């Protein structure tokens, strides 16, 4: 049963991530702003869910499933490596720092809200 709860949550989360990322490709910004926003919002949402949802299955669906599928670490590091190979070191460092600092803060704010 857990397999379906996690899988359904992640399926919806990943689709939403793809919709947002495709949307951002129409706006020409030379920075992976959408993955950054997705990871921050996802961490914030997981904080809220962790603090307020006490039903184990629902938390598995929204947390491990939805937030886990919505946020991504693989794409973020791939984008970082691309910026690195393009020798855009300032952008690379900025993306690096903003993701980790605001991302962790997002979760902390969410769980204490």
């Amino acid at each position, binding site marked *: 049963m857990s397999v379906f709860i996690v899988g359904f949550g992640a399926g919806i989360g*990943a689709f939403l991530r793809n919709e947002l990322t495709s949307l951002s490709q129409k706006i020409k910004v030379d920075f992976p702003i959408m993955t950054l926003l997705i990871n921050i919002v996802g*961490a914030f949402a*997981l904080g809220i869910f962790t603090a307020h949802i006490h039903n184990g299955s629902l938390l598995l669906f929204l947390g491990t499933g939805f937030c886990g*599928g919505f946020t991504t670490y*693989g794409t973020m*590091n791939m984008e970082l490596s691309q910026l690195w190979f393009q020798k855009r070191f300032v952008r690379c460092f900025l993306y*690096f720092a903003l993701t980790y600092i605001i991302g962790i803060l997002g979760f902390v704010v969410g769980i204490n809200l």
Partner: protein
Amino acid sequence: MQKLKTFLIIFIGAFIGSNLRYGESLLFKTSSGFPYGTLVANLSGALILPFLIHYLQDRFHLSSKMILALSTGLLGSYTTFSTFTADTYRLYQSGSWIMLITYLTITIVGGFICALLGNYLAASRAFVDYAERGKD
């Protein structure tokens, strides 16, 4: 209709990817509370993703639908950022400073190195294939 197709392609990939991560989190559960599961999923995913995009895609002539399922769906959901922030907060709350610093360092530095390595691996594999084709 196109939207529904995209949804199903990503959904299937994400269904598998998230459950691999979930399985690993259960498999690597230890009494110390160190999140080995998230770490293994994130680092391996960060290594495989550039290798998939820059090597496997060409090598096996993977269709754009297949790539969407494997990269955005499977690997995107196999790796996670939100759980990493939750793990970090949990280690901070429990006051396990050594585990916290170890986890942060391996995640932050290790993921980046894995992604670089994935790119290099893809380039070197592609070069070997190219050189071998040249011999025929």
